[in-house]
């Protein structure tokens, strides 16, 4: 496939250049822009990023392969990253992961046949107080998961309704 950045993408990349004294640091944000545009950063996309920035393909590949959030292969439309690390483990993160495996009929790391869902087990996402939780395609956090909440989530994602950002108020001690 022939991957091309849009005019807006190129403008965004151009604007990023002024933030740094050299071109290399634009690699990470440019990969983000590419991933948001194409849904992944397969080798061909890495080449596009390298050519756009005038950097060696090997450098871009090195960066893309180091960071877990860059998808080096095509994923489902919605990537569900279930945290099972420490606090989430204690609060039932594995139950949520296994429930999703059963519900979607796939194992972690796999994508459903219709290409809608990819299920991953991930390391700490920094939502320890709101465990168990998952993240949807590097974006929205869904906290305080229960099986019921997972059911609702899957149904709404099937209708392309992505839940909004869940604001968690600071707990106030005086209200105790």
């Amino acid at each position: 496939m022939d991957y091309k950045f849009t005019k807006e993408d190129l403008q965004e990349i151009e604007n990023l250049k002024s933030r740094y004294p050299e071109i290399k640091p634009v690699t990470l944000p440019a990969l983000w822009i590419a991933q948001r545009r194409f849904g992944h950063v397969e080798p061909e996309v890495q080449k596009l990023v390298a050519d756009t920035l005038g950097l060696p393909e090997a450098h871009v590949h090195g960066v893309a392969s180091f960071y877990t959030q860059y998808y080096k292969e095509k994923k489902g439309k919605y990537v569900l990253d279930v945290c099972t690390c420490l606090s989430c483990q204690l609060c039932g993160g594995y139950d949520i992961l296994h429930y999703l495996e059963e519900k979607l009929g796939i194992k972690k790391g796999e994508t459903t046949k219709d290409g809608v869902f990819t299920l991953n087990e991930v390391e700490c996402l920094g939502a320890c107080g709101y465990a168990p939780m998952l993240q949807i395609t590097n974006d929205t956090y869904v906290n305080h998961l229960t099986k019921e909440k997972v059911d609702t989530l899957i149904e709404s994602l099937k209708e392309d309704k992505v839940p909004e950002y869940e604001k968690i108020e600071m707990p106030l001690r005086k209200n105790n």
Partner: protein
Amino acid sequence: MSTENWKTYEPVLIPDIKNLHTIEVYEKNGGYNALKSVLTDKKKWPDQKSVINEVKEANIRGRGGAGFNAGLKWSFMPPADGGPRYLACNGDESEPGTFKDRKIFEYNPHAFIEGALIAAYAMEITTIYVYIRGEYRAYIQMMEKAIEDAYRKGFIGKKIFGSPFSVDFYVHSGAGAYICGEETSMLESLEGKRGYPRVKPPFPAQKGLWGRPTTINNIETLAHVTSVINRGAEWFKNVGAATHPGPILYGISGHVNKPGVYELPSGVPVLDLIHDVAGGMRNGKKLKAVIPGGSSTPVLRADQLDGITMDADSLRTVGSMLGTAGMVVMDEDTDMVDVLWRIAHFYHHESCGQCTPCREGTGWLEKILLKIKNGQGEIRDLDLLLDLTTQMEGRTICALADAAAWPVRFTINRFRDEFEARCKKSVHALV
């Protein structure tokens, strides 16, 4: 301050003020007065050094986990030579159990921005980067908005408050790597490379970003700088524990009724945090163990916690550390073998692979623990694990190997009976 006074403490970092995250409300509540003061009040702040001294005097011990005096760190910067100098703000926040800096991004981003600007002025810094983990997309967007607003109001940019001080401020997003919270790894990532930690020396103050003098501070640490300038070092030193003063954002998670982030003075008794602040143990279960400050800090048994407070000195007496004050609470039903295996899995996954003792060691820790978890371990595997930890610790470029080794050593030592119970009772037969 006695250990009881925390009950009357009023939060200053995350106070209960509606919409404080907006620049208008922040300004109405005295926002950017601290920055204005250091830039324009020459009587109070005759030079940059006077600001550094005040911060040094306050003894803000780095809230990212290392606990080093922030002002002292600033004083390591060499004299300005007209070239670029950098401040890299560490918002990578990836240590399991830690989820506090995101509260600053969400509820009081300008307190952090103002603190970073004061730090930049004090160290004659020309560009500030705030590195935020890629998973925090929502907070990255909030920070970009806050920085944009501060630019618009003239708090960032050229000749701030009419002074000769000019600085730029940018967000740099990570992309999923725990190691990038290590300060030199973060610099590599900012430079657009794989996040491999650098060999020290040279330290970042000498050779940091693009070989130029750089200081790295945690988000919460910089937010405290604003309070120190507003209220004075004396005020800060009188909050909480004498040798580890100031407010702390405690992140409490695990088996408690009201997990969350709480701003309280340092030195709150561990048991008060669990039973009072966090609403006690879930389902009326008994407390079994606590990891006080993120997954790398040594676990403590419930019977070790009497009279122990959340500050470096008190925790040291029972063989642990304050770390990031991200406290993980475990009840009586917790399987310590499972927990330790999961922690080992995390460090194995996150090892960058540069140093052999860490790359291979974290893998072996996980593998042996998995064997024990599955009931296939032998008693001597426990000694093998302990031996491994000594071969990893202090033998690598950065502290990830130490962070992986400590939980293994201390969890086995403090819950040895539980580990032995999971091991095969038979003597290994050489057949």
